[in-house]
């Protein structure tokens, strides 16, 4: 649920990076944090285990300038990808305005991608969101690794809504900002329509 303050002329939107464990959600946020102008981003918070696995969420606030006299603020969150953290994922999805589904392109991770996408659908439905309408962007990450599925295969397996999709290598930043830009666009278009 976006928050619009007509007094301070601010729009706040929440974007969640979803996907299976170790697909690169945190890496996306880390790259955005490193590359954004420090004036346009706040502090990045990672609630992680000692082994750097996301325990609860990562959080990165961005301010992208003004549209129609409104300052735009986007709060980026990641969910913990590991299957047994489902309760935490549900909490983080609350009030989400847009989702980036980050898939791991490696052939051995296809089952995990499908399981995570199905989990996203279930969790959205449980909180009253329509998984077929929420602004969604697909990111096929880890394109630099050997033994990856083709984009056509990933599309057929995951992109049933035919939403914008991007190849990415989050460690080096390939596709990271393209993905972010696409989801922000979809969120703002959705906002213009007055939400879902």
């Amino acid at each position, binding site marked *: *649920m976006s928050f619009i303050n*007509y007094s301070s002329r601010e729009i706040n939107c929440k974007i969640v990076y979803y996907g299976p464990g170790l697909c690169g959600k945190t890496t996306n946020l880390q790259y955005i944090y490193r590359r954004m102008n420090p004036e346009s981003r706040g502090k990045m*918070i990672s609630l992680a285990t000692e082994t750097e696995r996301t325990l609860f969420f990562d959080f990165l606030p961005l301010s992208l300038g003004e*549209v129609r006299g409104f300052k735009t*603020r986007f709060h980026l969150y990641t969910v913990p990808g590991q299957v047994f953290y489902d309760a*935490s994922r549900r*909490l983080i999805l609350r009030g989400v305005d847009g989702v980036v589904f980050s898939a791991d392109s490696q052939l051995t991770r296809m089952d995990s991608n499908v399981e995570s996408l199905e989990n996203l659908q279930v969790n959205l439905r449980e909180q009253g969101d329509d998984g077929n309408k929420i602004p969604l962007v697909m990111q096929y990450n880890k394109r630099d690794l050997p033994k990856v599925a083709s984009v056509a295969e990933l599309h057929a397996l995951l992109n049933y809504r035919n939403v914008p999709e991007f190849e990415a290598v989050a460690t080096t930043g390939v596709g990271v900002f393209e993905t972010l830009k696409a989801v922000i666009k979809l969120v703002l278009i959705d906002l213009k329509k*007055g939400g879902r």
Partner: protein
Amino acid sequence: MAQGQFILREKEYLEIQTVLKKLLANSYSKVVFLVDKNGALIASAGATEDFDTTSLASLTAGNIAATGGLASLIGEKEFSILFHEGERDNMHISVVANRLILVVIFDRRSSVGLVRLRVRRVAVDLERILRDIDAGAQREEEGDIEELTEDDIESLFK
């Protein structure tokens, strides 16, 4: 509510600020802020420059969400008040009208009892303002947001 937007207009925003300033003074606290359950900062009062309010808002919402999850596991609806005691500063976190989170940071000049008492009183005012916001949301809104164009959105990325 999962869908839609939370729209705050000037009148209600100023009313909220007045309520927060009153709470700040009456509870002898350092800073007071109001957050929505999704982690967006709505308004604040006091020495906010000493704190990263954006991060505080996000973590507070995460904190309430996590303890809410714990509550449901033991059959409770919600833990509506959280209190964190530090060596120097303390935090009193409470849920208002099931939708907003009121956070008070205070030191030894105040006490948890006083803060709790004052929070309970202003919660009534905040609930009333929320009802006004909901009523306002029913009215036709002449807004600039509906007029957003593709070019406006594209301009953010130049």
